[in-house]
């Protein structure tokens, strides 16, 4: 696996997060690391800061991590998770302003080309606008 920007998908629904990760995987294969966090600790709809932190840490790279989120609480919890990452890792992690599923596929496709986090972000955020 080359050192490309990694992708983390955060949804209120574990199914959405997992399915979006499957779609990303189908598009970019092993070229881009993808992790996801979805649902609350007890299996309901919501987001779990600890799970988001764990997902980010699984795929973290110096090159950067792009985080895709669905609605409000997912964003707030992801911001919190990024701030709580140890060793200043959070500096290399950005939440993209793009739809969770479409943005994840777009971001991963851009990342697969070796693009920087800024480029990945721009591509995903421009899409559909």
């Amino acid at each position: 696996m080359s050192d490309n920007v990694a992708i983390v998908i955060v949804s209120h629904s574990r199914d959405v997060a997992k399915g979006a990760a499957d779609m990303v995987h189908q598009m970019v294969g092993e070229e881009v690391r993808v992790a996801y966090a979805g649902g609350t600790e007890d299996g309901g709809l919501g987001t779990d800061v600890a799970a988001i932190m764990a997902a980010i840490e699984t795929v973290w790279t110096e090159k950067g991590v792009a985080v895709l989120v669905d609605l409000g609480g997912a964003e707030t919890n992801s911001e919190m998770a990024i701030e709580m990452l140890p060793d200043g890792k959070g500096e290399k992690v950005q939440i993209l302003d793009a739809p969770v599923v479409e943005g994840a596929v777009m971001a991963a496709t851009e990342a697969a080309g070796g693009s920087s986090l800024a480029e990945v972000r721009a591509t995903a955020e421009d899409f559909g606008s």
Partner: protein
Amino acid sequence: MTTEPSEVASGDALVTALIGAVHDTILAHRDELCDLDRAIGDADHGHNMARGFEAVAAASDEIAALPFGKALQKIGTTLVMKVGGASGPLYGSALMAAGKAGEDAPTSLVEVVARLEAAVDAVKQRGKSDVGAKTMLDVLVPVTEALKAGPADPLATARGTAAEALEATRPMVATKGRAAFLGERSAGHLDPGARSSELIIDAVCDVVEGR
């Protein structure tokens, strides 16, 4: 989890009492909070808050052994990690900021207000929001302001202001959080986070009064 008035004297007893009282009121109003959230959100605010305060209550002894400021911070991080909704990082950041405002339990109204101001600022920053958006801030900010004015009866002022401020969220149109999706239709309902803030303020007043 209900607490005897006599326990309230020492620092750790205060923390234990506060945790117990807030936990109790959240559990007692769990369904009401969900119903409020059902009307203008996703019906989970009661469950979210209960999940958070169950975890806080479970760690109550450990938390109460900490200095007051650290105890608040620990409650904050527990809420952040456990709530699962937007309210988790919001209340969590509030308590973390309030805890950082000083090691020892406040001994004056001025010190209480300083912590509340830190808490309110943290919510504003974390939520990228302010008063008037139909959120918990519409209770937290007026209560902080009212206490800052140095009222003769702080507890009565806190309770009264919280109750009025909660009611004032009813006609508001939400511009933050999920309720914002409803646009104009969010008017006519109390904000669930404003209600949980009011409940927490009431519970804290109860403890301070030694009820």
